[in-house]
């Protein structure tokens, strides 16, 4: 019997308090944290892993996970880079092609999970290698550089000089994803499916279609992240951001997503992303060594998980098996 309770609201409130506390503490310690330049540079930094975190969110709500998001982002950015370099007459294809690649990769993940019934963690671990491998074959190893300057200019462009474009894209994606999760049949079904797969079948939720769509959505968002990275870094690389994967999953945990499925909100993930960015920038400004960042992130995440485990029911067990067979 599944007696998990929804503690999301209370948790989100404490996460908001934590984020504000971190922000205030750093701002008091170092007023330069509040400088326009610092705030803007944060706006360029976090959207790429923020988007990756949003990509994983819908899959975790269904009780699954997508470990291939970073590989999908890289593959999408490599495809875009190849097309951009092919010449100005086909360059307009770069963005749609990258998004289509993301969608296709995600749908393939969904196919493995829904039709072949592979455990999501293993299916996407496999495709993580597969998509990364395809990327390396295309690039032959080194990064693809020499992109047209009009594209990379977007990576450092701010709307009206104030709002960094990556931040704007992150915001739009977050709002759209929140809408999908809260206000469409797919979003509501994904949450219910995540809380009880057997009941979902008996309630007539079209399980296979749902899962393919959820993973395709994850792939699409990952591809957007890839395009943002491409513009900012000015090159496409098959093994860019390999450290992002664990960070992105832990952001979801910190954001109140239950890895067993059934719970998770965009607002939680956004707050978790912002909170970690504050800590990261704060450490930087307060002249801590860059090596302390992992220490702080890791400590915070272990602390949050411990508190959640002590206060609510929170389990990782379901990540490693299919729930359907063990009601």
């Amino acid at each position, binding site marked *: 019997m599944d*007696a998990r309770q929804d503690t999301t609201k209370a948790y989100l409130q404490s996460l908001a308090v934590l984020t504000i506390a971190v922000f205030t503490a750093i701002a008091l310690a170092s007023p330069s944290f509040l400088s326009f330049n610092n705030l803007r540079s944060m706006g360029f930094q976090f959207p790429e892993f923020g988007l990756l975190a949003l990509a994983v969110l819908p899959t975790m709500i269904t009780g699954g996970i997508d470990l291939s998001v970073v590989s999908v982002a890289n593959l999408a950015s490599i495809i875009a880079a190849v097309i951009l370099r092919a010449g100005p007459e086909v360059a307009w294809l770069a963005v749609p092609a990258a998004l289509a690649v993301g969608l296709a990769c995600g749908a393939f993940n969904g196919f493995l999970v829904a039709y072949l019934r592979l455990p999501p963690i293993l299916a996407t671990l496999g495709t993580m290698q597969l998509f990364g491998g395809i990327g390396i074959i295309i690039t032959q190893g080194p990064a693809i550089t020499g992109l047209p300057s009009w594209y990379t200019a977007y990576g450092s462009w701010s709307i009206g000089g104030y709002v960094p474009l990556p931040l704007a894209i992150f915001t739009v994606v977050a709002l759209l994803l929140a809408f999908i999760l809260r*206000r469409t*049949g797919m979003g509501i079904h994904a949450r*219910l499916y995540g*809380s009880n797969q057997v009941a979902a079948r*008996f309630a007539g939720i079209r399980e296979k279609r749902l899962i393919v769509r959820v993973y395709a959505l994850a792939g699409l968002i990952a591809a957007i992240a890839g395009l943002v990275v491409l513009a900012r870094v000015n090159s496409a690389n098959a093994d860019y951001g390999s450290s992002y994967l664990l960070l992105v999953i832990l952001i979801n945990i910190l954001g109140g997503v239950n890895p067993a499925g059934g719970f998770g909100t965009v607002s939680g993930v956004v707050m978790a992303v912002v909170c970690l960015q504050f800590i990261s920038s704060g450490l930087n400004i307060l002249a801590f060594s860059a090596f302390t960042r992992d220490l702080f992130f890791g400590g915070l995440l272990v602390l949050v998980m411990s508190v959640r485990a002590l206060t609510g029911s929170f389990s990782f067990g379901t990540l490693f098996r299919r729930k359907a067979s063990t*009601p």
Partner: protein
Amino acid sequence: MATSQDNEGRVLEMRSIRKAYGPVRVLENVDLTLDRGEVRCLAGENGSGKSTLIKILSGVVTADAGSVSFAGRTLGADPVAAIDAGLSVIYQDFSLFPNLTVWENISFLSAVNRGDFVHRRLSRRGRAIETLKRMQVEIDPDMPVELLPVASKQLVAIARALANDARVIVMDEPTTALTRSEVAHLMEIVGALKKDGVAFLFVSHKIEEVFAVCDSITVLRDGRVVVEGPIGEFDSARLVEAMTGRSIDSQRLPREDMAEQTPFLVARGLGRRGEYADVDLELRPGEIVSVVGLLGSGRTELALSLFGYLAPDAGVLEVAGRPVSFRGQNDAMDAGIAYVPEDRLTEGLFLSQPIRDNIVVSTLDKNTRGFAINAKGLTQRAAAAVKRLRIKTPGVMPAVATLSGGNQQRVVLARWMERSPKLMILNGPTVGVDVGSKREIHELLVSLSRSGTAVMVVTDDISEAIALSDRILVMVRGRITGSFDARSVDEETLYEEVIKEDRA
């Protein structure tokens, strides 16, 4: 052989137990005693405080006031001490290790192993076999527990308790998953162990079996003991009245007769290898048909096939005059068929999710315009359903897990009624539902059928079938062996019919 009134042989005494969760008083001055060899029933509706009392007894929950003592020794809230004192609680899921064998399950409990540094396989296995023998049960000790039928798992759980030197065995809803003949077998074993001085406490709300085996009864209602005494002082009417606080007759529900209509669903020679065969069935609007059979008779598989969840491999199925072959449950749903599954908790409900979403999950389209769902519309629709079905809840957003069994079942019913189905199939509609709610659910189904829905009920509860149905079909070993008019058939006849081949 101890008599039940022997004070020397008192093995368990709970005095003036009180417990409150926040402002909610769960238990108020509850007394409970057990003597050597006594079998007592702890009866009460869902939410009456039975589970909390058991948790206090087993030391998992601390009482606010009162004392628990085993054989004269007072214990605090300490589960290990309670086990050492000879208490064993068998929960509904039995808490067995499915991947281990029968003997491993029986002999692996910590108290059995105490002092063993080395795993002494032979002596443990021997002890397990000895225990099974003492119970006169024939189960292969080397069989993995997951391969056993439910009834045998229960016996293994009892054997484990005995191997652990249990002197008080508490069983929570011991017969929910058992068929009648299995219950009878269980009761024989209980009778035998009782002669050895083992005391039992049954937590149950199935009334008939209470009378078969218990020496005494304690009835809880709203956290208080409303009545307590030897079994001789009760009849079933008095017991129901004590549990519910109102009198309920278990007679057939009144209804108007309907003119016979053309069948909505017709099955001819329907079969599925190894599960059921040659099933002819006609389900008409305005009629309630019960399919009564034991566990494993193929009743559930038949119901699942009509819902498109399983595919039959022989025969024809016609819906509204046209032959159909469902590729899945969605095809059946599109044809107007609804199915309330057997196990509410694992198959029926999204326990951790809001009541609202549990009700509207299969009808989100009703509030969808373009891509977007109108959340307010969902809430209004769910609130209307809650009101119509009289589901007791402060709102539609709490998790459905917070409701009692009867109210949870109404949530599942509400989900399907939102679809206005032409055929509603219910598998064990009142399992784990208290007596009062049971009656109300039955009334609900009668009015659903009288409004023109075909209703099929799959059950092993014969009195439910009689109270509820117009027509009763008996299923034995995958075949429909008899058809009865519910107005004229009596329980004995049906019972004989149901167990006919089971005995042979």
